[in-house]
């Protein structure tokens, strides 16, 4: 920079000192001699330049000498000409050739991988055209997905190859924690290091705060900015054995590491604003190393009309790629430092709500360091590469609630943190409650990988990969901090807990994979086969999982038939398939849950004469270890079959897949029998007391009651099957348009895999049935959902105009959902009399209390609900203006076709709202 400045300065001085020659030129389009305005002209080796005016004319003053004049214009081939400037003024005519036929087209959609497993690859050009606010928006390009409005008011989780949880109305309900494994089991890898969320504990009490925290739900895609991403590969099929601790699939993110000019992006849409600036420079003596840095800011409202709820993301990143070359070894070292902050805020409007103070704020500030060292040995064949990856991250998470609590009646606050009998107290009147969940999750990751060639027979090539990795996750936060006497609600029963007391979670992995490419006749066979071993290290011996390695065999193979001619085009066919087991270890929250506090009121005496002094609440508290030592990892078994064809530039890929997971994580309710002493205060005459009544003076009865707590279980089943397809056609020259058809048919079954205790709420003759009897139902509580969609994307590219225009017709042909048939008759019931399970026979069904355990389901509940075809048209356009500006705009659902349909004889009307936005991109 400094040098450049000096140079221009010296040039300026020289111009003043000597006599300058005037060069006048005109820049024309070679095809029709029309002038090209605003064309950039540069003179080398001098660092000067100019631009043509509206008539394509430019003027320059130069000292006599030899120069090279360069002209560049979007959509045209660069122009260079040597000129010898004498003392006489010169006139130049520059004719530029359109680059339309030579510019490579931009790929504005996801591309199906040609490798052994099914994966979608999304490049920078596609992202730029898509204009995403966060990583979530990229998923629109995946088979089976259509564009969605941003939902920044809740955690954005990923789901691969499934319909997602649907409600009875067929709409997506993302908050069912029973199937969190869908997103938890998807691995996000950024520059070779996984994003670890296992030590995330942010929650309110023991539940995720209405979908706002990502506890046990994996990566929150809202926090991932797309601006510094070079490419994304989303593996839907069976991932390479190299990657472990995942169950459904993986996302590989590769970020930009190259010299780039300053780029800046400003995006605005109905919900949000986004700013980004970044640059990449070449550093080092030989300019072989790169340094990239960027910052971004995103601010979104959940509802554009509501100023009280918003989500912000701030990102900063510095990345460097360093290279050394010796005669024996090439060393590449990628290092990066990142900072990401997300702030999720919500407040109630005191003018609209009866509650005047109700604030929620969740901050996440994460700092991370990533290093990837790669040694390439040119002279060794058995060891070609040695890779060492390391990453460390530290986050400061604060979830705060500030709430005015106004119990609707006098309530009781249990305030002990020890088991046994103690006195509680009444909460009389309103108060302000403050709740803090402070998490400081730390994650450290290391990986070593060797790869090289294995000798094999003539014509075949064989490579191995071998390695091991380790992830440590530990939370150092103070955890839940609040005053037990001022809980967030009148019905609060959990207790504060420090996250720093929770042990570290160590996940160890090792893998071996062999990749074989063999010609068989004129065919080619590629086989990738390996095993990944996952184990939890350093876990208490009481855990079943402790010391047990889980072996994931994974195989992918492709058979490529010999190419042949089809008319004038070359055609290729391939058949591929894969099978694999995929294991996801439980998170720290599942393995080390908080102790379950069960409080039983033994005495509830409110003194009407002097409530503050003479009342007495006596509580017996049981503390249960909610740890499920028998917890196993969630394992997903996948297989797929793919057919691929390519005729000229037309490509088709069709994949059939099936996945089965029978042991997904969920919290189940565990019932037990608890003894307590029930005091009878009815004999106390109010006004006769001078202090709280003594327990000794009261009549009592020793009895027992059924109570429950939550425990993590392998209780969820997800069965997926479906067909995914992608068709890319060659560009049709007359209209410069290509068609991409993607779509999928998915059938997903969500269900429980274990019998369920389900309490009833009836109170009969003053006795709550579920205090004494709870039924155990051999039932299926889930749904079977199917959907079929096809997206038709027409992309028109006119490089000469710098214009890319896409029209996407998104067709959701149907969405169907059916609740699994339930039988309301319990197989057994638990009784508070003995705490034992008893068979639920006919005698029980006629018992005056037990008869209430017979659940009844309206048979129509299990009918299939079908939402018929929904069609939307989305438009997106990108236009390059001049050398440094690119303008993009999009309108999703500018046209919709949502025919009315009937549901049980009732007409249902649908409507949709357009979502639009635009952005400016500067390249300086």
């Amino acid at each position, binding site marked *: 920079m400094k040098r450049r400045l000096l140079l221009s300065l010296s040039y300026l001085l020289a111009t003043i000192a000597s006599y300058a020659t005037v060069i006048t030129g005109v820049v024309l389009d070679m095809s029709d001699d029309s002038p090209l305005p605003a064309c950039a002209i540069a003179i080398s080796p001098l660092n000067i330049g100019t631009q043509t005016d509206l008539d394509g004319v430019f003027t320059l003053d130069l000292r006599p000498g030899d120069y090279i004049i360069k002209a560049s214009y979007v959509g045209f081939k660069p122009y260079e000409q040597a000129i010898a400037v004498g003392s006489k003024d010169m006139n130049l005519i520059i004719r530029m050739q359109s680059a339309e036929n030579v510019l490579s087209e931009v790929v504005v959609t996801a591309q199906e991988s040609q490798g052994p497993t099914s994966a979608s690859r999304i490049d920078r050009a596609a992202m730029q055209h898509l204009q995403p606010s966060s990583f979530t928006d990229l998923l629109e390009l995946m088979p089976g997905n259509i564009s969605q409005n941003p939902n920044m008011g809740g955690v954005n989780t990923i789901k691969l190859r499934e319909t997602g949880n649907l409600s009875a109305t067929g709409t997506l309900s993302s908050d069912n924690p029973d199937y969190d494994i869908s997103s938890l089991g998807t691995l996000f890898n950024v520059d070779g290091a996984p994003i670890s969320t296992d030590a995330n504990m942010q929650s309110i009490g023991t539940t995720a705060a209405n979908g706002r925290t990502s506890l046990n739900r994996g990566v929150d895609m809202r926090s991932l900015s797309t601006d510094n991403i070079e490419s994304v590969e989303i593996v839907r099929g069976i991932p390479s054995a190299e990657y472990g601790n995942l169950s459904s699939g993986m996302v590989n993110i590769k970020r930009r590491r190259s010299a780039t000019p300053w780029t800046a992006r400003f995006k605005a849409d109905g919900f949000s604003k986004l700013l980004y600036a970044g640059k990449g420079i070449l550093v080092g003596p030989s300019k072989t190393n790169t340094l990239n840095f960027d910052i971004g800011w995103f601010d979104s409202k959940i509802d554009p009309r509501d100023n009280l709820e918003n989500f912000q993301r701030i990102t900063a990143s510095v990345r460097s790629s360093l290279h050394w070359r010796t005669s024996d070894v090439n060393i590449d070292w990628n290092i990066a430092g990142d900072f990401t902050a997300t702030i999720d805020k919500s407040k109630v409007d005191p003018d609209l709500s009866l509650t005047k103070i109700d604030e929620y704020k969740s901050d996440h500030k994460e700092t991370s360091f990533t290093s990837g060292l790669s040694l390439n040995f040119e002279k060794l064949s058995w060891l070609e590469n040695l890779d060492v990856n390391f990453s460390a991250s530290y986050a400061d998470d604060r979830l705060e609630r500030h709430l005015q609590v106004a119990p609707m009646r006098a309530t009781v606050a249990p305030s002990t943190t020890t088991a046994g009998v103690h006195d509680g107290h009444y909460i009389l009147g309103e108060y302000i409650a403050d709740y803090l969940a402070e998490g400081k999750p730390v994650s450290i990751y290391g990986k070593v990988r060797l790869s090289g060639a294995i000798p094999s027979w003539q014509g075949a090539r064989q490579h191995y990969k071998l390695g091991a990795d380790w992830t440590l996750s530990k939370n150092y936060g103070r955890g839940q901090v609040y005053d037990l006497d001022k809980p967030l609600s009148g019905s609060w029963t959990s207790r504060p807990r420090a996250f720093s007391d929770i042990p570290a979670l160590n996940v160890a992995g090792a893998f071996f994979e062999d990749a074989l490419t063999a010609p068989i006749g004129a065919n080619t066979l590629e086989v990738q086969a390996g095993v990944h071993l996952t184990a939890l290290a350093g876990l208490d011996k009481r855990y079943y999982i402790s010391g047990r390695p889980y072996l994931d065999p994974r195989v992918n193979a492709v058979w490529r038939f010999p190419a042949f001619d089809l008319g004038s085009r070359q055609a290729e066919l391939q058949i591929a398939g894969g099978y694999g087991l995929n294991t996801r270890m439980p998170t720290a929250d599942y393995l080390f849950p908080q102790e379950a506090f069960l409080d039983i009121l033994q005495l509830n005496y409110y003194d*009407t004469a002097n409530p503050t002094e003479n009342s007495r609440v006596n509580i017996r508290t049981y503390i249960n270890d909610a740890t499920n030592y028998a917890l196993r990892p969630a394992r997903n078994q996948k297989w797929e079959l793919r057919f691929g064809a390519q005729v000229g530039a037309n490509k088709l890929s069709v994949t059939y897949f099936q996945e089965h997971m029978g042991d997904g994580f969920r919290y189940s309710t565990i019932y037990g029998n608890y003894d307590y002493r029930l005091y009878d205060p009815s004999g106390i005459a109010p006004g006769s007391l001078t202090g709280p009544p003594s327990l000794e003076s009261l009549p009592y009865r020793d009895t027992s009651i059924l109570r429950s707590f939550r425990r993590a279980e392998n209780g969820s089943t997800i069965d997926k099957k479906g067909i995914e397809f992608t068709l890319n056609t060659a560009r049709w020259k007359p209209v410069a348009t290509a068609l991409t058809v993607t779509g999928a048919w998915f059938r997903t079954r969500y269900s429980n895999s274990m019998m369920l205790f389900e309490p009833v709420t009836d109170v009969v003759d003053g006795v709550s049935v579920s205090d004494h009897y709870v039924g155990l139902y051999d039932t299926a509580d889930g749904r079977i959902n199917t959907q079929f969609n096809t997206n038709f994307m027409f992309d028109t590219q006119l490089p000469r105009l710098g214009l890319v225009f896409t029209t996407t017709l998104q067709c959701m042909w149907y969405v169907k959902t059916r609740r699994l048939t339930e039988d309301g008759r319990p197989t057994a019931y638990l009784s508070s009399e003995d705490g034992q399970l008893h068979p639920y026979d006919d005698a029980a069904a006629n018992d005056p209390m037990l008869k209430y355990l017979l659940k009844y389901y309206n048979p129509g509940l299990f009918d299939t609900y079908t939402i018929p075809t929904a069609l939307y048209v989305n438009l997106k356009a990108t236009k390059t203006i001049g050398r440094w500006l690119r303008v993009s705009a999009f309108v999703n659902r500018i046209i919709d076709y949502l025919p009315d349909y009937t549901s049980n004889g009732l007409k249902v009307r649908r409507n949709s709202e357009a979502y639009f936005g635009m952005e400016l991109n500067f390249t300086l």
Partner: protein
Amino acid sequence: MKYIRLLILLFTLPLLSCSDDVPAASSVDIKIVVELPEQFSGHAAESSTFHITNLSTGNTIDITRNGSYAATVSVSPGLYTIRYDGTATLDGAPEVAIHASVSSVTISAPTTVSLPAYATVETDDLIISEIFFTGTLQTSGNSYNGDQYFKLYNNTDHVIYADGLVIFESLFLTTEKFNYEPNIINSAVSVDALYAIPGSGKNYPVAPGESLLIADIAIDHRTINPNSLDLSHADFEWYDVSTSPMYTDIDNPAVPNLDKWYCYTQTIWQLHDRGFKAYGLARIPEGKDAFMAAHYYTVDYENITVAGAFPMTKRGYWLPNDMVVDVVNLSIESNYQWNVTDPSLDSGYTYCGTINNDKTRYFHSVRRKFLAKDGDRIVLADTNNSGDDFNPFVVPSEIELQKSVTDISGATASTVTIDGITPAEQ
């Protein structure tokens, strides 16, 4: 260009589908026939008026046909509520009012609408004179509902024993009408809570013109909420025993508790604080155990939502109409759909607030109207039409008597009335 053609097609598709035209409205003749109760058949109506209300326009046509129980009228097609008011005299008996109504009938073609009629019978038992279901507001503006109460009144000229009288809550909402199957409304009320006044028969006498205060929690609520009431002088309270601190009720040992026969919720029974249910009184001769064993039933229906109709189920008890002593349907004008009891039990509804979630409803109750004075005894209106019999949305009697807070501003009550409107001096 292929896709442009596709776009045009897409544009025109919605146009093509807009063809469900409705024929222009024209008048149709309907015949309205009052179906008399058995004992009145053959007796001429002395006065006879039909009120035909178009629910969409709100227009009402009143037709007087003295001497006749039928009328023919020309109306435009639409959704109607038709009411009939008449009087008749049986041989040797005093004049009795005859009422009939049918709500939400769709009229699209000439038809005969029959209105099942009933005669108002004076209740020889306690009746509900007030329901305070809205609760109060705390100083911050948050709601408080531990102070809900009922008042039962002896409207007769003799002592009534309250023992065994059952207070019930309807299973259905007056703001939600679905195709309940089986439909038992003509013979029974579907209920989800039953609480009985204790006593063995003559423990709780109520003198003529006296009332009983039945509170959720019979304590001085001002300890918890300064804007609330002192209900420690209540005659009864309903106490929901709980061993869980997640939901606790409070028991005043000095005030007898109602006998909890059945309640749908495991937590605490609160009255619907927007008033979407019906509350009533019943005498159940067969007693608790026999009734509880025989009257549990399941009702299927389709829940109609904007996303379609969804099969659902409710479970509760059916209470035969002849056991019902009194019932008060509560609703609000903006959401009212139907009365959840047979018209013979109640043919109107009363309310606090006019729109859903009306924030002005707090600190208000519904109170039975003053009708006349029989000596010193106040006689309250009882025509089995809560719309006619109650003063809606008035200051509760306990707030008046205690001169306590009447709204969030902290203003206090200054006057005492008989029924929320008629001054007590009268």
